[in-house]
């Protein structure tokens, strides 16, 4: 019930953001911000409720994971919001959040019984850090997408909907970089805590389980991107494209692995 309420709140915020994107009226933007903030609070309460109902950190089912993903993206955005004035980022971010919420809404909301192997202090640490990382990387994806849209209009010299509505290339490039500098350490930490937990649960640090392999691949994509940025000055379009590719790898790690390559990480059903 609470989940449905926060989903509706997100949808409202997204619609308001889209209306703002079209009309560019400042009042509508303030309304959208308030709505998103409210939705974020409601969602936090939802997750706390799930925690109490389940008796353990609710990050084991598909529904909970995707819902937490949306939650971390919301707060990644809201915490960024005050520091960086990036025009119309909210529209893009809220669209992704709503999509995630829709996916969460479609999957089973039953509370899972936790198998003994997963009962550990590492569960909340590993899973929340990993998904928080995803939240920031998702925002990096949004800014990468915005960068490509803006760069396209500037290069083609055809000024359509995006030219006046999107921020400057440099602002977007900086945002991509900031998302990575927060998201990448979190991702690293997520992998490390995961391997500690694996040691505790299954006896060895690394299993080459598909999810582990794919998070490593994702990690390498982002590591290469940061490395190239500092060494060869890969920025602008290349950084934007890589932020998008990296996020596709994140999504594959999240879903592709679960549904196509089952392993020890499968969600509790």
């Amino acid at each position, binding site marked *: 019930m609470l989940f449905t309420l926060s989903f509706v709140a997100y949808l409202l915020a997204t619609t308001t953001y889209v209306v703002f994107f079209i009309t560019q009226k400042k009042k509508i933007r303030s309304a959208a911000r308030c709505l998103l903030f409210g939705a974020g609070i409601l969602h936090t309460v939802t997750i706390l409720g799930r925690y109490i109902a389940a008796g353990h950190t609710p990050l084991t089912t598909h529904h909970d994971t995707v819902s937490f993903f949306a939650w971390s993206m919301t707060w990644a955005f809201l915490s960024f919001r005050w520091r960086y004035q990036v025009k119309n980022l909210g529209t893009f971010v809220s669209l992704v959040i709503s999509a995630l919420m829709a996916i969460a809404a479609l999957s089973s909301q039953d509370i899972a019984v936790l198998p003994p192997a997963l009962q550990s202090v590492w569960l909340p640490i590993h899973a929340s850090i990993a998904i928080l990382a995803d939240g920031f990387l998702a925002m990096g994806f949004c800014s990468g997408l915005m960068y490509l849209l*803006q760069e396209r209009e*500037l*290069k083609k*010299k*055809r*000024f359509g909907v995006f*030219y*006046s509505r999107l*921020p*400057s*290339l*440099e*602002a977007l490039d900086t945002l991509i970089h900031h998302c990575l500098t927060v998201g990448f350490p979190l991702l690293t930490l997520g992998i490390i805590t995961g391997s500690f937990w694996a040691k505790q649960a299954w006896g060895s640090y690394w299993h080459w389980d598909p999810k582990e392999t794919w998070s490593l691949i994702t990690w390498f994509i982002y590591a290469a991107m940061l490395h190239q940025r500092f060494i*060869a*000055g*890969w*920025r*602008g*379009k*290349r950084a934007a494209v890589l932020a998008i590719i990296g996020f596709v790898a994140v999504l594959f790690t999240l879903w592709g692995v679960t549904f196509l390559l089952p392993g020890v990480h499968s969600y509790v059903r």
Partner: protein
Amino acid sequence: MSADSILILGVNHKTAPVAVREQLAFSSDPERPFRSLKEIPGCAEFCFLSTCNRVEVIFTSPHQTETIQAIKKFLFATSNVKEEEIDNFIYLHRGTEAITHLYRVAASLDSMVVGEPQILGQLKDAYRNSSERECTGVILNRLLHKAFSVAKRIRTETNIGGSAVSISYAAVELAKKIFGNLEDKKVLLVGAGEMAELAAEHLINQGISEVIVANRTLERAVNLAKRFNGKAVGLNELHAQMELVDILVSSTGASGLILHQEEVKPIMKLRKNRPLFLIDIAVPRDLDPKLNDLDNVYLYDVDDLSQVVEVNKAEREQEAMRAERIVTEETLKFLHWIEEMQLTPTITALRQKADSIVKAELARTLSHCNLGAKEIKSIEKMAVAITSKLLHDPIHFIKQGHSHEDKQQKLDFARKIFGLDLESEKEE
């Protein structure tokens, strides 16, 4: 003289692309246009205007077809445009249309960036150059002067120039979309022309941190750099400077490209791919169009810049409409003057003026005299006789023009001496 003998033939940014316009640049020999146009038969008066967005000949001609052909040939003499293709690029305005067009040009309604202030100065220079060489006469002198006052009127009565739009303004808008904040950015001006100066001014208003001027002659570079507290370098240092700057404004008078794609590619590596914004406001172009294909390089030439301005065009459309109304109104006034500038209307006006003075003075004098009908009649006769005798010689003088030009001048002279156009001028 009828309005239809006023013509304007030319190309502008709307009718011809940069690639064609740059072939018509007349910078190599500034005297050539005047020499060539003077030789064209039937080209009675003319004014030659050449800016980076337009080349126009404003002229009057009694027998027109051959004159028009000759002017076309003159305009395209240095280009590789085939004779049968010329008509695709030019416009020819006649009579009312020509007057309206000139007014619109002067008021910057026909500019690439509507409302930009440079064109009026350029038109004034063009007129001065033409009149100093005695290429203009009665008609064009009046027409051009009117054009200047129409432009001034539009500037004060409408808000057309209010948003301070110009090519450099458009460039600043773009720079903001690329860099966001311009405060820690550097700009390199290549070529020390007026356009470069204007662009630099706009950029400095936006807080740009440093201006560097590169020019073929170091002296001019130093002078311009001084104005902006910047530094001057020689053109041979161009590549080294490009590693450091963020924006480059090129406006040299070079006949070919001064910067190629292959030269900039290695520079981008040295810059660690920091974005580079290249603005080419030169005609002929200075920068290789292929530069835009490089990652993180954004190249805009004059034509591209116009599209940026298109974006907020709607806001100015209303002001433009008010300006167009002024143009229409002023065109009608000029047409009225031209109609009057003929022999019969001038003589009629002269006689009417004399008659009205006689009538007024008679009425005043006779109102306080006690005279009989007979005396009044003779006084009236005398007054009429004096004025018609006084006017006899001037009328004889204006009737006796040898050439067309001579007649025009005499008419103009007479109209001025007797103040025949004063009434309509007062209304303005």
